[in-house]
């Protein structure tokens, strides 16, 4: 009897231990894996909608109330699973939804398969173009501009987050206006990094990845050109960005903790880094990990903002109801709904009209010095420029980041660069 009880105690403990570990993600909303159907039972059209990360339930309820002939069944899973199922169903030619969200980093892979999607221009999307940010619109269209794969939903413009207290400790001005004035260029940033390291012993930034990304996103060409030729060796920009990042690593300005890791979260709470270079949702991440801390501030990214990601809504060709799907899709990404999404869930709108909306410009955030944060990101969003990425973008990126980690571990940056190019070439030419 005793033994049995002990056994069950152990079992229960083990189950709890197993159960606890399943919620490890950062900022991921817990969206159930099940499809839920929203709308009246008598509706004539049922649309399936696959999304990730963002919960659109309340908007869909609103839509189905206004349009009782449509029911929408929505499947919301995490980003990776979402793209896996979408890829599989498109590849198999069966099972794709009527509307599918696609992430920025994935969308170029799907452009190879235009025949599997509706051209949204055929459904009348050219009328909408002027409502959206140019660069965001361009991401959703083909290289030649004839085919529109997706309409932008949310975007992720970037800015520089910093710790006012760390700046103060280093004897630097710490008000957002002053910091904005003080850090205009990367050279300014580097000097501040040196001062902070010298005065406080703290690192300027968490990891080489956001530094590399921030600087890369200011270049006019990245890893591939529009005919998918690899540029990293021939184009001067990436080598330059890599060199600078590597120098900063060697100077000790850049730490090496991965975003979302335990160490990283601790560091956010403790204020171990003077700055974070991240997208708009980083503000929520910071609030989540350091709820009582009011030392974080936001200013513009030195030398111009970039865009980390976002989602684009598409209509796979398999759909039986392209018109209804298109109608729902365009309603969902219209300025008004994007504004609601922004208010309810913090997704950042791709429709510049709302950037002047008082609901957008007036709310203040005590967490970030009591000012309005959204306006800053709106400016950032307007600053972003379109750059072609290509379907193998992430592969190249991964190899460069591996190289930067190696530099952190002591590799010689000059020797590491040809190694990176070797690895990239072997990986992408197959």
């Amino acid at each position, binding site marked *: 009897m005793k033994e049995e009880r002990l056994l069950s105690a*152990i079992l229960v403990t*083990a189950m709890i231990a*197993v159960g606890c570990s399943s919620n490890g993600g950062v900022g991921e909303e817990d969206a159930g894996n099940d499809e839920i159907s929203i709308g009246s039972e008598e509706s004539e059209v049922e649309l399936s909608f696959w999304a990730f990360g963002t919960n659109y339930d309340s908007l869909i309820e609103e839509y189905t109330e206004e349009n009782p002939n449509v029911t929408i069944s929505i499947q919301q899973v995490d980003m990776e699973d979402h793209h896996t199922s979408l890829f599989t169903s498109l590849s198999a030619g069966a099972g794709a939804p009527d509307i599918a969200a696609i992430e920025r980093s994935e969308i170029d892979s799907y452009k190879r*398969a235009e025949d599997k999607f509706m051209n949204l221009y055929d459904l009348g999307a050219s009328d909408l173009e002027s409502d959206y940010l140019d660069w965001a619109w361009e991401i959703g269209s083909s290289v030649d501009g004839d085919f529109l794969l997706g309409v932008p939903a949310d975007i992720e413009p970037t800015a520089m987050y910093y710790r006012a207290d760390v700046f103060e400790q280093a004897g630097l001005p710490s008000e957002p206006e002053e910091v904005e004035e003080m850090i205009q260029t990367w050279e300014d940033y580097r000097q501040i990094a040196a001062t902070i390291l010298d005065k406080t012993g703290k690192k300027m930034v968490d990891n080489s990845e956001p530094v590399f990304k921030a600087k890369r996103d200011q270049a006019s060409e990245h890893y591939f050109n529009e005919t998918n030729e690899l540029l990293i060796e021939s184009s001067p920009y990436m080598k330059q960005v890599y060199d600078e990042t590597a120098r900063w690593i060697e100077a000790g300005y850049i730490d090496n903790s991965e975003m979302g890791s335990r*160490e990283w979260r601790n560091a956010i709470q403790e204020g171990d880094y003077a700055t974070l270079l991240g997208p708009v949702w980083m503000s929520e991440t910071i609030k989540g990990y350091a709820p009582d801390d009011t030392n974080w501030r936001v200013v513009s990214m030195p030398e111009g903002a970039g865009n980390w990601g976002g989602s684009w809504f598409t209509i796979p060709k398999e759909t039986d109801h392209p018109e209804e799907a298109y109608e729902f899709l365009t309603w969902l990404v219209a300025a008004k709904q994007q504004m609601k999404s922004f208010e309810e869930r913090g997704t950042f709108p791709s429709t510049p009209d709302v950037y002047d909306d008082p609901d957008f410009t007036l709310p203040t955030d005590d967490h970030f010095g009591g000012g309005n944060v959204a306006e800053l990101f709106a400016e950032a969003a307007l600053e972003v420029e379109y750059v072609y990425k290509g*379907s193998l973008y992430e592969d190249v990126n*991964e190899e460069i980041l591996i190289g930067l*980690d190696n530099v952190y571990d002591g590799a010689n940056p000059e020797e590491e660069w040809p190694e990176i190019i070797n690895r990239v070439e072997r990986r*992408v030419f*197959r």
Partner: protein
Amino acid sequence: MARLQRDAGKSNDHNTMSNKEPQEPKKRSFSQRQRNMASGYMFISPFYLLFAVFGVFPILYSFYLAFFRWDGLGDMEYVGFNNFNIIFNDPLFWKSLYNTIVIGLMGTAPQLIVALLLAFALNSVLIKYKSVFRLAIFLPYVTSIVAVAIVFSVIFSNQESGLVNAFLGMFGVEPITWTRAEWGTKVAIATMIFWRWVGYNTIIYLAGMQAIPSDLYEAAKIDGASLRQQIWHITIPMLKPFIIFTVFTSTIGALQIFAEPHIFQGRAGRPEGMSIVLYLYRDAFGSNFFGTASATAIVLFFIIIVFSTMNLYFANRIGRSKKVGVK
């Protein structure tokens, strides 16, 4: 059921199809034997149907894919043996093969030995609360592999304050970058595999040991055999089928290491912890090169055959020492 089938078979064996005699007066299109066969196949069909769809077809299709260039969405292009050419010329493929073998050896060889000793301890009469220990030892096996990898990445944290680094620090060892160091990564991954699978093998060995008649041990004890001699001359030879089984499954498992390095190193992995399966996974589902990934899978298939056969051969020789039985 089996008996019935055999009997039915016997009666029909002599005059198979010509058996239309009044023995079975009702109108029937199938003989009893055929009916039995059909129902037998029906009973096992769910497995085979599912296996055909989710097992056989993908296996055959990946053999086919290995000769094509395909991104999963567009058209397939026949490239002959070029995919094999590409992977054989990729140093990372060889590196991943090397990693897999090294990690496999580090993770499974000590594991099987420890499992044997643990099973022996659990089987001995000296231990109380046996089922508690059995359960405790088996628990890692039913733990989610993702949970294991996450817990171990906390233990093997790169930070100076990480558990292992802090412990090593007490002996003056410099902190190790576990997720990136050549040997650090392998040690961490091998430890995970060891921890997760040792209980499974222990339970199998334990089951085997319980089947060994105790009079063998009694006789040995009367003859004055030491504990070591008992293990060496009774337990291990009697356990041979179990050892062969565990060596076989461990070899296959070790060559297919995936989740541990995948989660431990994060993102798309790094060369230090890249296993073959991770290499082909990244190729297929990261970069959408399904041709080269299939070619890798086929190469892995043959590697597994070679290693399994080799291990089977060696495991078969266990306990064949000349001393056995020569009392």
